[in-house]
């Protein structure tokens, strides 16, 4: 049987010569992402800003009566609801932010959800309530703090490990790649205004895990080559390492992207945003391992002495000096 080879043997693509352009593009994208988050903001779900969200299905109807719903929920005096389709035409989610005075009365979010459910059931007897989420202001700010704190702790923890296991430049490179991937994912969410909830934090964590995995595989090869080819100049050595692992990068990315694309297309609507985030993050993660974390080593001045004990470094310098003379 002839086996499939996605990347032909002895591929030698000069990835690193594009590094400055790629870096420029990445910086631009990151700035754009930050600007998007700053101007449009993230569409935070009730998990993070509190309030209530109800998922409804209008059984046996073509489409959900969005306008009628907006009116009947609006009558309750909590403000204007955000009504969004999810899944089929007759399924909508109704979201409402915390009303005024909710900080004094923690139970208000839940009371509001109960009233809205009762009102919808009264005005639209055919409705089926599929889910109710209500979160008070205090609980949502705790979830927000804990979620983001966990994210930062995880990113820092792994960077410290990479630092110990490799060199500090590698740790910085890994962190930079993580910041890059996460910033772009935030940008995607600000751009598309997909709902940002606790599940998305789990997706971001998966992206961190994956991106790091990718970075480490390439770093491991760089370390190996640094010790093997002491005299090769760094850009060439990085290119060699990236090319040697390219077949693995492509293979792994494709195998993981396949189920994710399936999830995006056929998966439950509840995790649509989640699946999109993961697929996007994994794509960006593969790119950043090649174009962010590897070139970072050049800028941070890694060289073939980085993995040799200090006294041997002195020896090797003498050696090289001697070679120069001959």
């Amino acid at each position: 049987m002839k086996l499939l080879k996605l990347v032909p043997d002895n591929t030698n693509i000069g990835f690193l010569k594009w590094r400055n352009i790629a870096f420029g593009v990445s910086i631009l994208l990151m700035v754009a992402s930050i600007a998007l988050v700053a101007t449009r903001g993230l569409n935070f779900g009730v998990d993070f800003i509190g309030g209530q969200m109800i998922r409804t299905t209008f059984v046996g109807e073509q489409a959900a009566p969005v306008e009628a719903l907006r009116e009947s929920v609006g009558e309750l005096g909590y403000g204007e609801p955000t009504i969004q389709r999810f899944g089929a035409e007759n399924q909508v989610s109704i979201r409402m932010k915390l009303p005024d005075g909710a900080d004094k009365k923690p139970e208000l979010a839940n009371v509001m959800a109960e009233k809205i459910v009762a009102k919808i059931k009264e005005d639209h007897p055919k409705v089926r309530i599929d889910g109710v989420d209500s979160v008070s202001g205090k609980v949502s700010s705790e979830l927000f703090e804990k979620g983001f704190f966990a994210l930062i702790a995880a990113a820092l923890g792994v960077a410290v490990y990479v630092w110990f296991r490799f060199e500090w430049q590698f740790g910085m490179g890994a962190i930079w790649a993580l910041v890059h991937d996460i910033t772009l994912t935030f940008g995607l969410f600000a751009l598309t205004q997909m709902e940002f909830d606790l599940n998305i934090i789990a997706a971001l964590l998966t992206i961190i895990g994956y991106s790091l995995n990718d970075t480490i595989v390439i770093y491991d090869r760089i370390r190996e080559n640094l010790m093997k080819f002491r005299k090769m100049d760094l850009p060439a050595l990085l290119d060699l390492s990236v090319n040697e692992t390219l077949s693995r990068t492509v293979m792994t990315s494709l195998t993981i992207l396949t189920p994710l694309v399936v999830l995006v297309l056929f998966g439950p609507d509840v995790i649509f945003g989640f699946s999109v985030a993961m697929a996007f993050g994994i794509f960006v993660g593969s790119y950043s391992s090649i174009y962010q974390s590897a070139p970072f080593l050049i800028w941070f001045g890694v060289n073939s002495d980085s993995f040799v004990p200090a006294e041997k470094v002195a020896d090797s310098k003498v050696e090289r000096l001697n070679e120069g003379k001959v």
Partner: protein
Amino acid sequence: MLDFPRWRVIMLNTLMVLSLLLALPSFLPKSWLDRIPDGVPKQTISLGLDLAGGSHILLEADTAQLARDRLESIEDSVRTAMRRAEPRITIEAVTRTGGKLSFIVTDPAQIDAAREALLPVVANSVGGRDWTIEVTDGNRISLIPAATGNTTALDQAMNSAKDVIDRRINAVGTLEPTIIRQGADRIVVQVPGLDDPQALKELIGKTAKLEFKLVDEGADPEQTAQGKARVGSQVLPYPDNPTGIPYIAVRRLGGISGDKLTGAQQSFDQQTNEAVVIIQFDGEGGQRFARMTQQNTGKLFAIILDGQVISAPRINEPILGGTSQISGSFTVESASQLAIALNSGALPVNLKVVEERSVGPDLGADSIRSGMIAALVGTAAVLMWMILSYGRFGIYASYALVLNVAMILAVMAMFNATLTLPGIAGFVLTIGAAVDANVLINERIREERRKGRRVIQAIENGYKEASRAIFDANITNVIAAVLLFIFGSGPIRGFAVVLMIGIVTSVFTAVTFTRMWVSRWVKRARPQDLNI
């Protein structure tokens, strides 16, 4: 490389069979599981509420209310202690502002005696003091709650609140709730399969503090309507008041509380056929109730539930039997709910719903169905990629992948862990890691062969060289998972748990198991070339 000791082969195979057996029950329908005799391990993974449907309710104690209640009860104790002191100590200007109880001892000469009499009042059961006594201006005494006192009181209140909730939900039957205390002032109630928790919330959210007080019949109705009461009275809400004013004035003192009950049940009024609740006092409560009704025959008394008057009937004759009937525009359902609440005891502290997550069975089923389709198609695609790219080695990798999934499920079932939506994300990541490990190994073997190494040497190097990267990549994921578990909240923890289990099993299956299969094949077939 070829030496794979027999004991290791036996051990690994045993482990494989065990994992498959332990994972199996999670796939069997419940009716099959019921037929398996007890004693045979048949734990299954439970699906989280987000997948299976159900309600998650987070209740938070009203700590301010608890502090107010404590102040009120310390005031009672202080007044009693002063009255019973020999000679009696008179106090005046009693206030409960600023979170402390403060009063003036009328005769400054008695200040030391007052202080002495207060000592047993403020002492707690473990020898410390729940309140600090402070004397200012020579005759003013303040009782300030000690921090430990408030903490202990909250802790006790939350423990008994949990028991009360447990009793109430159990009284309804059929539901299988999980009730856990969370932090200092919260309780989580999770009920699988319950999509409309309205009735449940009403049941567990009701404090069920029952009181009987005399109506202040001399109160000016206009004043009452404005919420103003005269000295010795207080105005309470009374939504069903036949006069139309939703308030009523009651006498502060001389009432009795409903905590001295031995039972309550729903019944019907013999004349009006209305739904009512019959309550039965214990010995002491019955006597006090009898005395109150004897002394006040012909007057109105208010039945107060959670600070709200539910009815105010006239006492036609003394009630001596210790049994009383509470009416107040109940439906059969609300009457039996009240009976359950009264039977299970009052909540020692007001609880408020601060978070609710309810998922209907249809949405949950939708999630599971499309999740399953995605998982199956995804797995098939991954296996196909692996086999097309690496041939025989891809088949071994596929076995390892399937075994990995079974192992994760087996471990989760053993610990009775819950699979949630974020948990599925963890699954995807670990499967990714397992695939990656095999890709790394196989790519390395290819590379070594290209460099002209002999078959056995290439395989050996492949495993050896790839292990380093596999190890580093997985350690970092373990670090991330542990940190997430420590710092994350509910859903993130679900992710972290799957990740921690999955990383261990994926390295194990992707490296150790494939190595065993490959080495046994090499030993048997002695291939001269590798198709990889």
